[in-house]
């Protein structure tokens, strides 16, 4: 829990990550529903684009700085910034202040934004005190810990706690759940063979649990893993954790044909 008391109806700016916005809008609606159920007022600023992580991780520090400034301006008036991605939110929380080492004014603004930026599920549990959700999912899931959320933001128990309250859902933990799946942003296209091997290691561990559904908190990892599963003809379904928690995992899973 945070030290400062939470306002009765905090104003939350929902960060629609690039991938979510384009590839999986239902994660955005699931996020909004979970936040509103927890008592938040949710807005989606139209001036938002990308957090700048692709540039930051590929060497383009100037480009990352420019996009960081834009995001700070779009979101700094909210009580909180929340996004359904550990990796984007880790960029905002951990990397933004360092981008402005030599710019005192911007650094202050970056630090202020970082302090109120959260990955969705850790925000719901750690800040809003949510302990359970009202949802049903009939299946056995295994949960992949995406690296940035896990190691930079400490997202580990929160999704499991909330998933534990979903009716009809069984959690089976896989071996090496904390090992990278091989997505790694541009890594997956720059070194596709290594990425494929890492995906197969992950999916073998997932398969050994017997779970029919694979969940995770970062769409990049999920697109990569679902893409590999579909290529191999596996029937395992892949959803973002938020979709299941919000009861919105009733449509086709990632890469699945319209039912």
């Amino acid at each position, binding site marked *: 829990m945070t030290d400062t008391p939470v306002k009765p109806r905090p104003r939350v700016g929902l960060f629609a990550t*690039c991938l979510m916005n384009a590839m999986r809008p239902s994660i955005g609606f699931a996020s909004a529903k979970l936040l509103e159920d927890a008592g938040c007022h949710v807005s989606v600023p139209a001036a938002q684009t990308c957090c700048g992580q692709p540039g930051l991780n*590929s060497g383009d520090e100037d480009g990352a700085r420019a996009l960081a400034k834009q995001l700070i301006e779009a979101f700094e008036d909210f009580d909180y910034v929340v996004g359904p991605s550990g990796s984007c939110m880790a960029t905002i929380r951990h990397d933004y202040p360092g981008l402005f080492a030599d710019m005192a004014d911007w650094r202050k603004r970056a630090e202020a934004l970082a302090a109120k930026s959260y990955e969705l599920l850790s925000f719901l549990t750690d800040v809003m005190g949510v302990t359970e959700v009202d949802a049903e999912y009939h299946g056995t899931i295994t949960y992949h810990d995406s690296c940035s959320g896990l190691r930079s933001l400490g997202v580990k128990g929160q999704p499991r706690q909330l998933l534990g309250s979903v009716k009809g859902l069984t959690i089976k933990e896989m071996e090496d759940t904390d090992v990278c799946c091989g997505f*790694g942003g541009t890594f997956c296209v720059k070194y596709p063979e290594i990425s494929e091997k890492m995906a197969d290691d992950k999916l073998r561990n997932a398969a050994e649990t017997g779970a029919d559904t694979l969940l995770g908190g970062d769409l990049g990892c999920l697109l990569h893993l679902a893409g590999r599963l579909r290529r191999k003809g596996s029937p395992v379904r892949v959803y973002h954790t938020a979709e299941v928690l919000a009861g919105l995992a009733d449509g086709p899973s990632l890469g699945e044909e319209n039912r």
Partner: protein
Amino acid sequence: MEFRSPEFKTRAVHALHDANLQKALSNTKAGFVVKRAQAAEAMPEFEALRDTAAEIKNHVLNNLDHYLEKYEAAVTAAGGHVHYATDAEDARRIILGICKKAGARRITKGKSMVSEEMGLNEALIADGYEVVETDLGEYIIQLADEPPSHIIAPAIHKTKDQVADLFAAAHHKPRKTDRAELVAEAREVLREKYFTAEVGITGGNFLVAETGSSVIVTNEGNGDLTQTLAKVHIVTSGIERVIPTLDDLSVFLRILARSATGQETESYTTFSTGPRREGDVDGPEEYHVVLLDNGRSKMLGSRFQDMLRCIRCGACMNHCPVYGSIGGHAYGWVYPGPMGSVLTPLIKGMDGTYDLPNACTLNGRCKSVCPVRIPLPDLLREIRHNQFRKDMTPKRQKQALKLWRYVAERPKLYHFAERIGVRILASMAGGKGKLRSLPFDPGWTGARDLPAPTGRTFLELWQAKRGDQ
């Protein structure tokens, strides 16, 4: 040592298809990862010790000149000699000089990654010396004529069957497959070498400034025989390996073995302080320490200074899923894995090392286990920034980043482009939910499908439903 980092990509793909290597790599998890976790778990003060170790190293690095002088004075007082080598060539010249003066013919070696960095074996052999590696792993790869693939387990890429073949060929004895028998055979062959070598070369895990001692940590005792039985003992180490006191050493000894192999302590921790003194029953007549700089002093005071805290435990590579997929040889030089991907570009230069810091998912597992808390992912990313500034990033990628920035800095254009993009992808998928190939595919669909978008972006759906709030 040959520099093959420029071939990273092809060697990595080759490694993925090497069945023996994959079998050997799959055995390492239980050997390293599980045991390290158990060792860390069993020691309540382990995390605090990591902090203390990092602090000691930071203090030394901020006062390195002082501690090197102190160390040198202590070594000299004990009757030994300290030599400073600015680079690998300088180090080879110094060591060849010592061996020549000693009238050596046979040289035994304990494990030393710094000597690999010096390219020492090749130089000694070229000058006519017989060089015998005495660490079992190093001995195996010397027989195979290969470089180490791991900094503490140099032959980790070899299976037991491959070792059996190598021994049978080299020792001219019946092929054995039992582990204990193989070890016994190597021990028997090496025993004679220890007694007849004129010079013994070892590494130095730690150099203690207050006593002038070099400390080696081994599991086989081969280092002890190497350094006590030869007439001349040469220690090879990096200038950053000095620590102030024996008390400080106790901190490192408690985290090194636990981080490396998950042992509470290695079998042998051996101190060498100068040559044999009057009344000593054994020990060398001469004691030399060759301290290698090779780019380290340039890291001091730079954004890469943290890298000099490294105590060479290997935990970062043991926990790296990329290293675990391709092994150490793909990295193409002395130091593989995360620590090597930082060190190689800094020591060997930016040319030919482009892939090393890029072939990393920044998953942070290395940083989470580093006993001296080196922020390896941050350093790897820092090298990528340097590559970008030096215009080494591939043109296509740089153009893509520029385009991405241009569009993302213009929210209206960005959202318009995303709306068009998702409509095209959705119509290409035609209700199948996935795409098997893509026009202008950057490398996605070789091994995976692309789960197709539904055809509308979240922002446009949200705005249609909820307005601009």
